[in-house]
């Protein structure tokens, strides 16, 4: 999978940009505020039809404009894929080789991508939603059925939440209707829960191995899946929550409440990991994502590295470079404020790098 060209129009800060990419490693350098990250985010958008930074499409439109569009040309073996995506007035259209997608979901997973950015620290420090999104975006790329089940789950859940709020306000309840919604949620809970469990079984060893090779440390790291269904069967857990949910007006049990607990030597990395350990943790977490996607899908994702070299010490940088040399990753796009730093990192390794300066 090679990204050959990318055009941005009114995408965030970019008015009009056309880029051509030739190498397996593309370095984009420039001062802060020149729009380096923007290019990476546009690649992310073309692959997953959304910004990495969890923004609404409307917020991505350049100030003073009312639309944006993106174009990309991706080669897979000999086959050329031309992608075009346009957003205007709340409507999004995505075309592949001239054919409009009926459902955007059908595009997700065709061109896998992994992004590493400074905001990843949110994964450790923010609430559970960020971690669920991490897992969901990964699983949605490898398993289309997962994505469809998740979309369906979220839709039914919204209806149930609306109903619980209404019942709490009005003080009267239609148990039959709640039952009907639960009946539809149950199989989705079962499916999504078991897929998350299976994913972590496979993911944890990959992640641990990467952490060791990146950090050179001996600590034991891991991801523990916390779910209402670890202790109780989904049907039983949902049934038991019923009364409390009516009292609180919120749906307290289900995969929308799941969390991932990041651990180091069995303790939460949030409180027990040093800054350096947290850095290694996050990078390994993301690189494991890239390797997991390659293994499951049989193609190497685009790897987008936003401004990570400045903050990594020599040991971690050279471990990362070794993995690049072993061809564990797909095409890499990286940003940095300092071209010299990037040159110094890659020169000894004899890696062909395309330099773009903004």
């Amino acid at each position, binding site marked *: 999978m090679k990204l050959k060209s990318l055009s941005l129009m009114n995408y965030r800060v970019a008015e009009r940009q056309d880029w051509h990419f030739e190498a397996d490693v593309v370095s984009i350098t420039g001062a802060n505020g020149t729009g380096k990250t923007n290019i990476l985010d546009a690649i992310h958008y073309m692959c997953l039809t959304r910004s990495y930074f969890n923004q609404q499409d409307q917020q991505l439109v350049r100030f003073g404009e009312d639309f944006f569009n993106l174009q990309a040309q991706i080669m897979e073996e000999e086959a050329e894929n031309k992608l075009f995506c346009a957003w205007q007035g709340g409507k999004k259209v995505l075309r592949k080789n001239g054919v409009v997608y009926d459902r955007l979901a059908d595009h997700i997973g065709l061109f896998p991508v992994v992004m590493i950015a400074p905001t990843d620290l949110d994964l450790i420090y923010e609430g559970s939603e960020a971690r669920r999104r991490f897992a969901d975006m990964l699983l949605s790329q490898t398993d289309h059925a997962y994505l469809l089940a998740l979309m369906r789950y979220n*839709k039914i859940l919204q*209806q149930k939440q609306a109903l619980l709020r209404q019942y709490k306000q009005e003080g009267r309840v239609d148990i*039959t209707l709640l039952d009907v919604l639960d009946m*539809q949620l149950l199989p989705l809970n079962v499916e999504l829960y078991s897929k998350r469990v299976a994913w972590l079984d496979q993911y944890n060893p990959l992640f641990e191995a990467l952490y060791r090779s990146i950090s050179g440390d001996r600590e034991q790291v891991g991801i523990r899946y916390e779910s209402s269904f670890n202790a109780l069967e989904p049907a039983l857990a949902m049934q038991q929550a019923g009364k409390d949910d009516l009292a609180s007006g919120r749906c307290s049990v289900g995969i929308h409440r799941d969390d991932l607990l990041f651990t180091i030597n069995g303790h939460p990395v949030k409180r027990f990991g040093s800054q350096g350990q947290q850095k290694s943790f996050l990078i390994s977490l993301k690189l494991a994502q890239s390797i997991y996607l390659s293994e499951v899908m049989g193609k190497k994702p685009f790897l987008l590295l936003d401004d990570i070299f400045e903050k990594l010490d020599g040991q971690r940088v050279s471990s990362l470079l070794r993995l690049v040399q072993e061809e564990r990753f797909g095409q890499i796009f990286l940003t940095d404020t300092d071209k010299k730093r990037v040159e110094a990192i890659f020169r000894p390794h004899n890696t062909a790098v395309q330099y773009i300066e903004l």
Partner: protein
Amino acid sequence: MNFPSRLIEEAVNAFSRFPGIGKKTALRLTLHLLRQQQAEALELARAVTNLATNVQYCRTCHNISDAPVCQICANKSRNQALVCVVADMRDVIAIENTGQYNGLYHVLGGLITPMEGIGPDQLKIASLEERLATGEVRELLLAFSATMEGDTTAFYIGRKLQGRDIRISTIARGISIGGELEYADEITLGRSIQQRIPFQS
């Protein structure tokens, strides 16, 4: 948009309240009316007035009707034991156009959508239960869109009628006629395989 005439502005505002009609289109429609013979515009006005003042809903099936009981309900040659439950009048028209259905209807007036404040009480579900109390109806055919709201409404009615001696069926879902298998989405295709039917040649 600024208009040279209050009359034009009023008409444009009225038209632009239609779904899918913006100010520009509303202006085009207004100017079109002005270019026509006055009689034709008045004819339209009469039709609108008639519609607004004389429209009724059938007291049995809640379909739009010219009389207290609609033509379909009043037609004794139709199968009185079979009732097709639909969301709104457009569905009645669609099913009538197939020429394949000879039973009666029950128009709910929407589908259960709690997020939009539409629950069973806002729909004609209680009236459906009353209608079944007479015992004349032997089968209900649920014909809803294949959406989450359609499923919820169907399951809800199913639950409400549990234990009654009545057959409940639902329209089959699958590959559209003339549709190519490879382009069918996996949910439709999956369901078509799960609920496969004996081959008839």
